[in-house]
C-alpha cells in the first residue's frame, strides 16, 4: 500500500500518523492528566512517571494475619494472574467499586480475598511454613513513609485500614463449617 504513494501522499500519511499518535502533545499536554480523557491502547495518554510522589504513600494490598504471628504479605500470585501493575490496578478498581456501591459490589474483591485464602490453606512444604499461624486474609489499605521504609529499619505502617477479610480454612471440618 505505502509503495503506491507519491511523495505527496506519503507526506499526508506521515502528517496524519503524527497527529494520531502525538495528539496529546499536539493538542495540549494537560490532556495527559485529564480524568475525562481515559487512557487507552495503543494510543496512550498516560502521563508516565510524571507526577510527584508524596513522602507518605498509601496502597491497597493483601496480607495474611493471625494471633501472635507476624503478618505475611500475600503476593499477587496467590490471588490473580498477570503482572504486578495489573494486579495493583485490579485490586484498586475492585475496592473502588466495593466502596462506591456501599459494599454491595463485593464479588470481585471477595473473589480475590477467597482465592488467596483458599490457596494459602492448600499450601504445603516451606510455603506452608511461611504462612504458619495465620488465620485470616485481609485486604488492607496501608500508608508508609516510603524513604523510611526502604532506607531504615522502620517497616511499620503509619496507618492501616482493613477493607475486607476472609478466613483461611485449612481443615475439612473448617471448610465444611463455612459452607452455607
Amino acid at each position, binding site marked *: 500500500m505505502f509503495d503506491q504513494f507519491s511523495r505527496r501522499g506519503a507526506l499526508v500519511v506521515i502528517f496524519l500518523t503524527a497527529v494520531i499518535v502525538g495528539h496529546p502533545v499536539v493538542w495540549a499536554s494537560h490532556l495527559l492528566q485529564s480524568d475525562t480523557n481515559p487512557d487507552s491502547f495503543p494510543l496512550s495518554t498516560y502521563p508516565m512517571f510524571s507526577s510527584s510522589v508524596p513522602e507518605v504513600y498509601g496502597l491497597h494490598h493483601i496480607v495474611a494475619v493471625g494471633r501472635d504471628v507476624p503478618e505475611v504479605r500475600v503476593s499477587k500470585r496467590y490471588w*490473580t494472574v498477570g503482572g504486578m501493575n495489573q494486579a495493583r490496578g485490579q485490586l484498586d478498581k475492585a475496592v473502588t467499586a466495593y466502596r462506591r456501591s456501599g459494599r454491595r459490589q463485593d464479588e470481585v474483591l471477595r473473589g480475590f480475598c477467597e482465592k488467596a485464602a483458599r490457596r494459602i490453606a492448600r499450601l504445603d512444604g516451606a510455603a506452608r511454613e511461611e504462612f504458619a499461624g495465620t488465620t485470616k486474609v485481609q485486604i488492607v489499605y496501608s500508608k508508609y513513609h516510603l524513604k523510611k521504609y526502604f532506607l531504615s529499619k522502620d517497616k511499620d505502617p503509619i496507618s492501616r485500614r482493613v477493607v475486607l477479610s476472609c478466613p483461611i480454612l485449612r481443615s475439612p471440618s473448617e471448610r465444611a463449617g463455612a459452607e452455607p
Partner: protein
Amino acid sequence: MNQTAPGTRKPSWLSRLMDRAFFPHLPPLNLAICRIVLGAWVLCYFTSADGDQFVQACTRSLPEVFRPIGVVKLLDTPLTSATFSQIYHVMLACALLFTVGLGHRFIAPIFALLQLFLWTYRNSWGFIYHTENTLVFGALLLALAPAADTWSLDAWLAARVPGYGNVLVSTVHEKPSTPPLLHALRRGTPDFRYGWPIQLIIFVVGINYSVAGFAKIGEQGLAWASGSTLEGQILRNAYWYEMIAGQAPSSTLTVLQWPGWIFTGLAVMTLICETLGPLVVIDRRVSFFYAFIMFGFHWGVMLTMGIPFIYHLYGAAFAAFIPWEEIPFRTPQASSGPKDAVEPPAPGTEAVTAPDSPAQPAATE
C-alpha cells in the same frame, strides 16, 4: 538525489529538509530486516514463558475485572478460552508467515490487526501496560509497507513462479534478474518508497517518547528535571513491588542509596531525550545514535525500577534506526563470482537495475 536540472527551480530549504528527513533512498533490505526482527520477536515472545503468562492473563482472570479498551470495546464480555485460543493460534501462524515474508500483502495486515487486538485485549483486564505500543505501531506500519521485497519467500517465489509477482509483491519490487535464491537474498535497489516507511517508524517511536516527555513538563514544568520526582517514582515503584509482588527488585534497593545529583542527571537526560525524540528523524546517523541512548535508557529503567520494556530491551524496537544500508553485508550476489552475474538485457528489452547498485533516483513522481 536532490540535484536539479539546469533551468529548474532550486528546491526550498523546507523541501530539502523533508527529503532528508522522510525520503532517503534506502534498499528494501532495511524494511525486510525490520519485518524479520519484529516477527521473530513476536514468535519468541509468544512461544516462551511470557506467552504462557499472556494467555493466562487473558483467559484465567476473573471475568468481573474485564474493562475493554480501544478496539476491544467492540466486545461486551470476555472471549471464551476456546475462541481466544483460536485467535491466538491464527496470530502465531500469521507471525510465522510474516517473518518469512510469505503473502506479505495479505498476511501482514491480518497479522498487524491481530497484534493490535491481542495486546489491547491483554490490556483490558484492569491495567494498561505501556510497553508494547511501539510493537503494535511497528507491526501496523510494516504491514502496509513493501517489507517483503527481499529476504523473503515472496521475493523467491516472484523469481521462481511466473505471475506470482503480479499479485503478491509490491509495485516497487524490481523484476527478478537473477536466480530465485539470489533474488530473494539481494540487498535491493534503493528507492524513496523503501525509505519513507522506515523514517515513519522512527518518527512514530520518537513521538511516543515525546508524549511521555511533554507529560512530565505538563505536570511539573522543568521542575521535573530536579530528579526528586524520578527518585519518588522509583521509591513508589519499589513499594508497589514490595506490597503486591512480595519483594522489590534488589537493584532498585541499591539505586535508592544513590546521592541526589545522580537522579538530577538522569532526569535531565530523560527530559531531553524524550521531548526531542521526533527530531532525530532528520538524519539517519543521529537516529542511530539516539537508538543507542534509548536502548541504554530502557536498561536503566529495568535496573532502577524493574519495569521490563521487553521489546526495547532486546533492541527489537530500534531495528529501523540502524543504518543497515551502510553495513557492507557480503550478499550471495557479491560472493558468488561470475557464474551468477546478471546477463545484460537484450537490445530493445527493458533495462533491469542490477542488485546492490548505488542509490537510484525515484522512479515515480
